[in-house]
């Protein structure tokens, strides 16, 4: 049977092998309380056969459905099937595991679960990539995945899990920090755009300014993030204490202002650098023609250079947004708020699930931002490329 062999999907095969291996790893962890390290339990022992048999079977069937390269829709279905299996195992076994343990016992997903989750997400992404969805379709898919996630979390299916117990005891704080995190990431992005675009345009026209600016911004980029946030404390503390009125508008060594400033400084290089690169990408002949037909410098910028550089400039914003969503976690260290608050509280308390409460939403947020920005970049790139 030559046919089967040639139609096997190499990533699908890899996913299947890794997936089977991951099934051997602990699927859940049961701990006596939220601090101590728990005991791992493999997937087929998390509950009785009535739960584990269909769950493990769904995972294995999902992996098998991902094997055939040409049946893209089947592979996609396999990913959904496998994810449903994971959800089934997780939601059904958690209450059962807890009933056998003490009052403070915590149950959480373990390495095996996370590996399988990633494998099925990759399988889904691989199958979707083969379907080549347009930018709008991708936005719709993203929305559907997020909606499914919210629905599962909201349904209470997983409320027995440790990370969601941490959530339910901090529900209000979670949404406050969520807003704070968005404020830090998008606020610093907006400020970087406000400063970076004009600076980039100036740099484009003055080679001297460009030579002075970009190395400074590159240097800022090389400062380790922990050091950068730490450095802000004495600097803004001094500003807050010496400049009249500074404290009144919230400028102090710790809190939102230093975190915001640190993120802003990190954002400038991608914004300025990509603006300069985008403007420089205009074909020289088109620029010469624009000059020769009597466009003013302003008209050349608005009608030729900016529209042609837009995909590159937006790519800069994408880098900044994804980078800042991640970096904003460190703001928690200097009292800047955001999901980092939970991460650092969790680190202090050695409560892994509290760390996850900060880390998981950050990952989801960064992925969402990346996919949305990619869609935007692609929409601006829809002009046919110049042929030679």
């Amino acid at each position, binding site marked *: 049977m030559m046919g089967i062999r040639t139609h096997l999907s190499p990533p699908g095969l890899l996913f299947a092998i890794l997936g089977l291996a991951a099934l051997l790893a602990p699927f859940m962890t049961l701990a006596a309380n939220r601090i101590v390290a728990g005991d791992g339990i493999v997937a087929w022992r998390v509950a009785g056969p009535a739960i584990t048999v269909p769950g493990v079977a769904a995972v294995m069937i999902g992996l098998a459905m991902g094997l055939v390269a040409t049946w893209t829709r089947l592979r996609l279905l396999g990913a959904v099937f496998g994810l449903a299996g994971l959800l089934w195992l997780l939601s059904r076994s958690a209450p059962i595991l807890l009933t056998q343990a003490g009052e403070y016992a915590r149950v959480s997903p373990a390495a095996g679960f996370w590996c399988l989750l990633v494998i099925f997400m990759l399988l889904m992404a691989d199958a979707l990539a083969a379907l080549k969805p347009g930018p709008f379709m991708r936005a719709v898919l993203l929305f559907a995945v997020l909606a499914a996630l919210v629905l599962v979390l909201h349904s209470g299916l997983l409320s027995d899990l440790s990370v969601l117990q941490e959530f339910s005891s901090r529900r209000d704080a979670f949404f406050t920090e969520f807003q704070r995190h968005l404020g830090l990431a998008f606020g610093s992005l907006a400020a970087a755009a406000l400063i970076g675009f004009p600076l980039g345009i100036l740099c484009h026209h003055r080679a001297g300014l460009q030579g002075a600016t970009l190395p400074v911004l590159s240097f800022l980029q090389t400062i380790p993030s922990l050091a950068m946030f730490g450095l802000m404390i004495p600097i803004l503390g001094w500003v807050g204490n010496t400049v009249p009125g500074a404290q009144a508008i919230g400028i102090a060594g710790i809190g939102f202002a230093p975190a915001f400033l640190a993120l802003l400084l990190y954002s400038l290089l991608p914004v300025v650098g990509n603006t300069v690169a985008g403007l420089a990408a205009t*074909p020289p*002949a*088109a*620029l*010469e*023609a*624009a*000059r*020769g*037909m*009597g*466009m*003013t410098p302003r*008209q050349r910028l608005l*009608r*030729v250079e900016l*529209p*042609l550089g837009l995909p590159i400039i937006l790519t800069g914003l994408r880098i900044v947004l994804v980078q800042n969503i991640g970096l904003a976690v460190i703001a928690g260290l200097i009292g800047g708020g955001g999901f980092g608050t939970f991460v650092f509280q969790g680190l202090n308390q050695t409560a892994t699930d509290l760390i996850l409460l900060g880390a998981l939403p950050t990952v989801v947020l960064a992925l969402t931002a990346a996919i949305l920005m990619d869609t935007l970049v692609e929409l601006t790139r829809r*002009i*046919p*490329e*110049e*042929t030679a």
Partner: protein
Amino acid sequence: MIEIDQITKTYGTVNAVDAVSMTVETGSITVIVGTSGSGKTTLLRMINRLEEPTSGEVRINGTSTSTVKPHLLRRRIGYAIQGHGLFPHHTVARNIGAVPELLKWSRDEINARVDELLALFSMDPAEFRDRFPAELSGGQQQRVGVARALASRPDLLLMDEPFGALDPIIRTRAQEDLRHIQRKLGSTIMLVTHDMEEAISLGDRVAVMDGGKLVQYAPPAEIISRPATDFVANMVGDVERPLRLLSLISVAEIIEPGEADGEALPETASLRDALSACLWTGCDALPATRGGTVVGRVTLKAIRARAGAHE
């Protein structure tokens, strides 16, 4: 009428263009020809002030170009360059309508002008209007580039190696089209090239530049028959001079009464074509036609006499 008066451009201590003076008649094609570094492109770019002259001035219909703001001056002067310089993110229609848009013509006027120009360049407006430059062939891109330069009915059209990026067959066709359109519109064109063949076949007058100086400014026939310097003679190419000269003269000029056998030549054909036909068929004479009827003959002897005449 374009008057270039003692115009000089100095870079450091080098005179890229050295006190060049010339007058270009309205409705003619003037070709500036020279090797690279001869200053021909700098001369052209000083006319629409993409380069500011160090000294001297250019007058268009009596008005000095230095009295007009550069970007306003350039909107009145068409400019077509090598590699067309079309805006890749704009459709053909927006590209052609770029200068009228700058001049704030109404949308209807611009659309009408775009369709008119596309038709003039043998491109179906309905088919090409909404395409992007990347979706056109090289020859079509070049035509759109020239159409764009002509869109606002400029006083003068400057062309810097406009056919340089085209392959030889398309280039000949593009040259013929330009000649045809120039005759039809009566445009004044100044064109820069390094190709003497192109200069001779396109120009009403040819200006030869060497080392920043204008060494000869004359009709093509004179450039060939009486080159002013060795440099010009070299550019023309000594061996090919008679053939180049013959290519400028039409059969009509040497038709004589009489009969001949063989395939007839139209009187609009060049003597170069006639010579070629004679050699190919082995005939000493061929019939010549005017509007399809035979009016006489062309003889090899007459061609030879004309080639040796040197005017």
